[in-house]
């Protein structure tokens, strides 16, 4: 018999935590906040939920090390996409006029 990676109890606990966090995500959208705070809270909770899924359900650290590397590379590449895109779009038209021109 293969070594179990986590117990059934652990899986169920994580599942309950994920459902509670989902309810929290929806609840936050009813709090009268500025729009971007909704997004920040929602995405923040989503990152936490995705981490729980990756670590406990996808057994990120239980398999071969190259799996962890693959996950890091995927996130890193996504980070490049995000950082370069936002450093372009968020800074457009914001430079002050250059003296002498």
């Amino acid at each position, binding site marked *: 018999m293969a070594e179990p*990676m986590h117990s059934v109890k652990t899986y169920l606990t994580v599942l309950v935590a994920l459902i509670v966090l989902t309810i929290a995500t929806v609840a936050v959208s009813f709090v009268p906040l500025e729009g971007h705070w909704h997004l920040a809270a*929602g995405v923040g909770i989503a990152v936490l939920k995705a981490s729980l899924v990756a670590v406990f359900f996808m057994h990120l650290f239980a398999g071969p090390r190259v799996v962890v590397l*693959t996950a890091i590379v995927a996130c890193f590449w996504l980070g490049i996409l995000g950082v370069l895109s936002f450093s372009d779009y968020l800074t457009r038209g914001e430079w002050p006029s250059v003296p002498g021109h």
Partner: protein
Amino acid sequence: MSPDHALLTNDERALFEYSMLKRHRLEEQFENLEQQTHAASTGMWVFLGTEVMFFGTLFTGLAIYRFLYGTAFEHASVELNWIIGGINTIVLLVSSGTIVLALHFARADRSRVAAWLLIVTALLGLLFLGLKGYEYYDDYDQQLIPGWTFDEHDWIDRGLTAEQVPHVQLFLVFYWVMTAFHALHVTIGIAAVAIVAALAWRGHFSSTYYAPVDVLALYWHFVDVVWIFLLPMLYLEGTHALAAG
């Protein structure tokens, strides 16, 4: 080496038995089943890495336009059916729970339990698609389909300017493209889960050979993770309490 090689132990001979797929359980390029299982899950993780890029571009595009056209996006977001979106999140999370338990029991040599859990997973996937389909119909009813049923004056009546209405349409295009691609992934997942459930029912998997359940579960969890991000980024951008008032 043939399956009846005299030097093989019983365990090794079992590995050579033809499965229902009429293929050797241990492919010849691998040293042992552990190596084969690791190669399979690594392959799936690499594929999921490409999927991160695929959905990542859509999420990045959505985020950029969210920052450029915040007001219109918030107005459009609160019109989406967050109740079905939220329930569907829970449906997918529970299905992730059932498929990880299916893997757990397949690895514990309890194939029938695994098969039942896979059947439940597929049914939850179908429930997700059913709710999504109803939501699409509701969107049609609410005139949220740019280029088909969409009334610009509606949105101006809701307090947006004429310049902001195309931004609403842009948000809705993101909504349709992202949820449709996600639904396509769920559909493919349901078909794969059904096949693996049938194999599990016939006792195809064991504590030594479970890689197909493993990689399928990884794919299913990834599709779940995409939805985890779609919920706040599509449905919950604005304040519902303010929209109602």
